């Protein structure tokens, strides 16, 4: 494809190749050149031989073709009337890390910018670089026994904020943790000591109120036997409630430790309620324990299993009905929590603070959430944490960007109805423990202004509509940097990259987070997609249907923050390898460990789980 003057400048030292037939006498301009970003593919497929090609910079100074040549002809000395001497390349190279490839100005639209990209950490920038890495971050802590698990590192918040001396606390919220070590299904919903009783009939009532739900059944899965078959897991939800009239993100939240709600669903015909894979199978083989959105090892699951009308698995009303029915049960538990729990039973109290750091680089986190309709939707801002009542479906809001503060995010303002690939979908619990929000608010070098949720609509015109609104919103925030995250891959990458473009073209450095790797390679791209964190953890870089395997974890958030800081400091992000390789991430981790002098613990992947029949047959 022909290139712009800017691209030509960025690729001044790359070979000049004509994109189209050009006639003798043509004075060469950027419009005559093919984009060097795709040369590797062309060379690979034998379409291009760059031997003897002059660089773009050499022939942009009034050079004219002396003969008519066809598309994909390299500009060589014998077909131009004059060219400039080669220069620049040799001088500039040493300034950058020598081992790396040239920075990718424009991500090729068909190949993934892949993982991470190489970062150069600019250590001189910002004193006091001190990322607080909670012991056993990611897999370690969150996989710890139930009682300590819920939000292991949140306690570090006040300490970090106080130390800076300049942080301003905008608002606070308290989480009171209550331990549950036994769940009994019975005739009444109540909490006695550390035992939670759940009224079985609540599920039947929940189902009866929903026309599309044929049945909803509860059972309890306990840590002593996780080898239990389960239909696809639609969502995992914390069980929490607000005290009194407190609103989300403020006041006091009561949360049960050691137990979570697990929503599963199929149609009458037995079709899994999921798209692009489903996680049905034995739970111990299909659950990536300890991921922010997943169940932690040691926790009790209250499984609510729904059967819905045939064909409703791929239509929004189906999943909405299931979630609403399940919430009937959860709300009854919440009511019991309000009634039965006393302060004496609190096992841990966390004060969560939203801090701003005036004078530090202002950043915003944009989270793209699914909003294609069909089954993809999210309830935004329910009255109760991860509730249904009071919430507005993202799709009905037109998927336009909506602003939230970090405490609202961590207090369950997103009730996720997402049914995309199990390995990359962000379930409700993911937001409750969102690692990027957590790491950003605890990073002394940056000033997190807030979180924006933007839906991913189905139609391309709608995607660009919301994307433009997002760009404008970010512009008005006057930030120095931005993150854009997404779950899933494919369709949503169209708006994901467009979001990055809309923000990037306003001069704001952006770092993107997505599962890409092998299977989720970006389907589109633009020049602003040059700094990407790949959330992949799977060995083969695929959607392996292991629940939450490839979702954003603390280790990704830390890499992303380092990358954004580097980018905001004007450092160049190196282009990734053309083909996905774990090596890029590993090298980035190594760089960060060296810079911060701290070891980064990386989470396990599916290889740590017992091999399932499905994985054996389909994956690895």
């Amino acid at each position: 494809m022909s290139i712009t003057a800017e691209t030509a400048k960025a690729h001044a030292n790359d070979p000049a190749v004509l994109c189209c037939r050009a006639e003798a006498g043509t004075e060469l301009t950027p419009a005559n050149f093919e984009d060097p970003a795709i040369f590797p593919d062309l060379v690979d497929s034998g379409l291009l031989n760059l031997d003897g090609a002059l660089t773009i910079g050499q022939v942009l100074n009034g050079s004219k073709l002396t003969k008519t040549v066809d598309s994909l002809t390299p500009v060589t000395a014998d077909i131009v009337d004059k060219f400039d001497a080669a220069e620049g390349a040799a001088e500039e190279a040493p300034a950058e890390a020598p081992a790396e490839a040239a920075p990718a100005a424009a991500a090729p639209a068909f190949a993934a910018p892949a993982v991470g990209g190489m970062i150069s950490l600019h250590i001189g920038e910002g004193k006091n670089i001190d990322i607080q890495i909670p012991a056993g971050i990611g897999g370690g802590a969150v996989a710890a026994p139930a009682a300590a698990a819920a939000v292991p590192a949140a306690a570090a918040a006040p300490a970090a904020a106080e130390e800076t001396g300049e942080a301003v606390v905008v608002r606070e919220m308290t989480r009171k943790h209550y331990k549950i070590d036994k769940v009994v299904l019975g005739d009444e919903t109540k909490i006695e000591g550390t035992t939670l009783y759940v009224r079985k009939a609540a599920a039947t009532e929940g189902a009866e109120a929903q026309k599309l739900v044929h049945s909803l059944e509860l059972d309890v899965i306990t840590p002593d036997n996780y080898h239990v078959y389960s239909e696809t897991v639609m969502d995992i939800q914390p069980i929490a409630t607000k005290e009194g009239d407190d609103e989300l993100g403020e006041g006091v939240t009561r949360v049960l430790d050691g137990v979570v709600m697990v929503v599963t669903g199929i149609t009458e015909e037995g079709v899994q309620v999921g798209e692009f894979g489903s996680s049905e199978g034995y739970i111990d083989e299909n659950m990536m324990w300890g991921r922010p959105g997943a169940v932690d090892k040691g926790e009790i699951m209250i499984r609510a299993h729904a059967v819905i009308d045939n064909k409703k698995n791929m239509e929004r009303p189906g999943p909405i009905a299931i979630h609403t029915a399940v919430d009937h049960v959860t709300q009854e538990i919440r009511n019991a929590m309000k009634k039965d729990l006393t302060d004496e039973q609190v096992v841990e109290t966390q004060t969560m603070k939203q801090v701003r750091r005036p004078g530090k680089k202002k950043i915003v986190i944009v989270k793209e959430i699914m909003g294609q309709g069909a089954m993809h939707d999210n309830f935004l801002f329910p009255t109760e944490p991860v509730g249904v009542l009071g919430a507005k479906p993202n799709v009905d809001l037109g998927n336009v960007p909506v602003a939230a503060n970090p405490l609202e995010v961590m207090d369950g303002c997103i009730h996720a109805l997402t049914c995309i690939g199990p390995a990359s979908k962000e379930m409700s619990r993911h937001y409750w423990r969102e690692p990027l929000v957590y790491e950003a608010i605890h990073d002394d070098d940056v000033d997190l202004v807030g979180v924006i949720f933007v839906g991913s609509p189905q139609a391309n015109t709608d995607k660009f509509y919301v994307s433009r609104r997002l760009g404008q919103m970010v512009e008005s925030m006057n930030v120095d940097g931005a993150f854009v995250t997404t779950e899933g891959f494919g369709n949503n990458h169209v708006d994901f990259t467009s979001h990055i473009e809309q923000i990037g073209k306003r001069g704001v450095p952006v770092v993107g987070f997505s599962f890409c790797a092998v299977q989720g390679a970006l389907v589109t791209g633009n020049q602003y997609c040059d700094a990407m964190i790949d959330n992949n953890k799977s060995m083969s870089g695929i959607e392996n249907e292991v629940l939450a395997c490839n979702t954003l974890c603390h280790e990704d958030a830390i890499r992303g923050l380092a990358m954004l800081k580097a980018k905001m400091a004007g450092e160049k992000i190196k282009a990734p390898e053309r083909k996905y390789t774990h090596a890029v991430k590993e090298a980035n981790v190594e760089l960060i460990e060296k810079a911060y002098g701290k070891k980064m613990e990386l989470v396990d992947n599916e290889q740590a789980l017992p091999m399932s029949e499905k994985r054996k047959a389909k994956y690895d």
Partner: protein
Amino acid sequence: MENIQMLLKQGAVGKPCAPIVAVGDKVKRGQLIATPTGLGANVHSSVAGEVIEITDDRIIIKPNAKQPKTFVKIKKGSNLEMIKEAGIIGQGGAGFPTFIKIYNGKEDKPVLDHGYILVNASECEPGLAHNIAQIDADPEMLLRGMHYVMDIAGADKGIIAIKKKHRETIEKLDALLKDDPAIERHLLPDIYPMGEERAVVRECLGIELEPDKLPSAANAVVINSETVYSCAKAIEEQKPLIDKNITVRGMIKGGNEAHVFMDVPVGRSVQALIDEAGGFDERGYGEIIMGGSFTGKACELGDPITKATGAILVTRQFRDLKGAKVGILVCACGGNLERMEDLVKKYNGTVGHVCYCKQAVEMPNGSIKCERPGNCPGQVKNNLEFKKAGCEYIIIGNCSDCSNTVMASGPKMGLKVMHMTDLAMMAVGHPLYRTLKVSKKVDQDLNVVDNVEDNETVE
């Protein structure tokens, strides 16, 4: 003669007209039968006969056995009034009402400020011949018509854009232009597209317009040559636009030469015109295209021609791709996605992937336009995508230059390239759109032979 169907919406743009006749009415040839309800132009009956049916979109007239050559004259008035009264719309394809194009309602401030009337005589779509035949037969009327239009639009200059290959016709024009300093001619190369209005502006005036700009942004109005004749006839003969020149060509009995029919009553059926040309070739055919092979649409035998119809092309039979994956490259020069998908279906292929040419820009009305018609932006990236998507074939609708670029990488990658015009081009005996060997520039001196190699010949 078969029943005549006068569509209430004759062009691609505008709103349908409202009938002012009723079933059972006897109408004369040239009688006003429908008037505009919004953007549109008068519709007159092209035959003498009886209105036998009025539907939502057309008036159907049973013609009398004997048809007069004469017609009901439009009433006299100013030149502009007569062009409006005659129901003249652009005859190059889109059918925009001419009186609106050349007059803005301001007596003292015409649409152009000492600007240009650019006459599109490029006969852009391959295989057509009726435009040049008309000019060749009566070049004087073209010049008179141009002066009428120039006066109304406020143009000082007129330029006739015509392909250099029509040497004899150009010589006739040159002889007349010696005595007409306000009008000149501009020679065009024989490649596609040359008649796209912004391409005409670029070729004649050297101004490259953005896709959302009209020629008025270059102080110019582009008007099809046949439309100029219609204006002259309205003014000089008080003739409403009831007859149309048509090229019928392709898989027609007796060979693939162009059958040029002058003054065909608007509303005649595709079947009737094919019959008059000699009927279908006994080897069968693929589809019938109303209009050119790039921008026209597949039609049915019973469909009527309109004031904007230029051609009826009968194509070769479709090959059976047996369900093979076909990539579609959509661009502004050729068919839209719907048309391309229809072709893939007719070829019995499966759509494997869709790409858009980098220069195809979507307009607010949903149509697409090319940023730089006829100048390729590179295509190899799309080919890589097709290959990646596992396509065996690709079908393109690109211009000469872009087709050439597609060919530079497609076949080497193992993609079998088809052009949407292939079956029509084979049927009319025109080289297929593949590689480009002729220059995109021609010398304006008719006697200078340009650096021209032959394009690929058929099959």
